[in-house]
């Protein structure tokens, strides 16, 4: 049992597949959701999986360096900025239109 588990230690393929699975689920959410906040949540999922990918490559390609982790920190900071602006836009839109349905957001110009 112990030997089996130790022999099946996750390599870079398993890690990358996990992060690709999370990204694909986020993509599904972005394509199917209609509520803008739900779309934002799915985008957060995709950003998180991209950051995970950076750390995996950092670990398996250049374990002595920190470049991948720094990229992940930058991704987290950009995600925070994106959520702030997105939430402000949704709140303003909801106040003016009483809807946050992305299908009805095609009339922003008037």
């Amino acid at each position, binding site marked *: 049992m*112990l*030997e089996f*588990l*130790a022999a099946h*230690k*996750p390599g*870079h*393929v398993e*890690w990358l*597949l*996990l992060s*690709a*699975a*999370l*990204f*694909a*689920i*986020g*993509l*599904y*959410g972005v*394509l199917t*959701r*209609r*509520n803008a*906040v*739900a779309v934002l*949540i*799915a985008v*957060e*999922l995709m950003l*998180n999986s991209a950051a*995970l990918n950076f*750390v995996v490559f950092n*670990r*398996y390609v*250049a*374990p*002595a360096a*920190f*470049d991948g982790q*720094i990229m992940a*920190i*930058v991704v987290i*900071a*950009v*995600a*925070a*900025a994106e*959520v*702030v*602006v997105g*939430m402000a836009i*949704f*709140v*303003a839109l*909801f106040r003016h239109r*009483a*809807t*946050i349905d992305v299908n009805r957001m095609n009339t922003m110009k008037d």
Partner: protein
Amino acid sequence: MMHDAVLTVLFYALGAFAVLCALAVVNARRLLRAALALMFVLLASAGLYLLLGAEFLAGVQVLVYVGGIVILIVFAVMLTSAADLLEDNPRFGRKLAGAVASIGFLALAGTVFSRIALRAPAPGTHPPDDASAIGRKLLDFGAEGYVLPFEIVSLLLLAAVIGGIVIARKTPPPGQPFTSGGDAPGEADIALPRSQRDEPEGPDA
């Protein structure tokens, strides 16, 4: 060997938990539940960062993502919840298109990953003290340093804060000055000191 076995068990447990919670994120009909499931996905990601040896990043993930971004999303859900509390089920064609796109991406990525061979890493040179090494690298002026992205991110955060305030604040009705918030008509009288108002019948006139 014990270490490797524990690593395997933790990887598959955390990975399965993260994938299940991510499925709950995109399928939950109540948005608050979706936000809660997102929080669990992010916590599982922090655990995965720990498995990868990125302790500082795991801390940042818990502090910023779980403590900040999820709270903001919950606020957004609550502030807009009167619109439609329940996300109605998407149409079948839409679901099918999303599923085809995401499964296609996953299949493509899986094929590519199984065919590449990564360069063998330099053996066991991970420094133990990674928080201070990351900090030094972020503020390094040299060719390997990241001081410029660091400063750009700080400007981006400032712009996001200002943009969030300006976009989400109440706009005054037409005719009112932008600074008064629209509900304080006598603000100009209060703001000016008495000596600077142009009143003809002052006490010393």
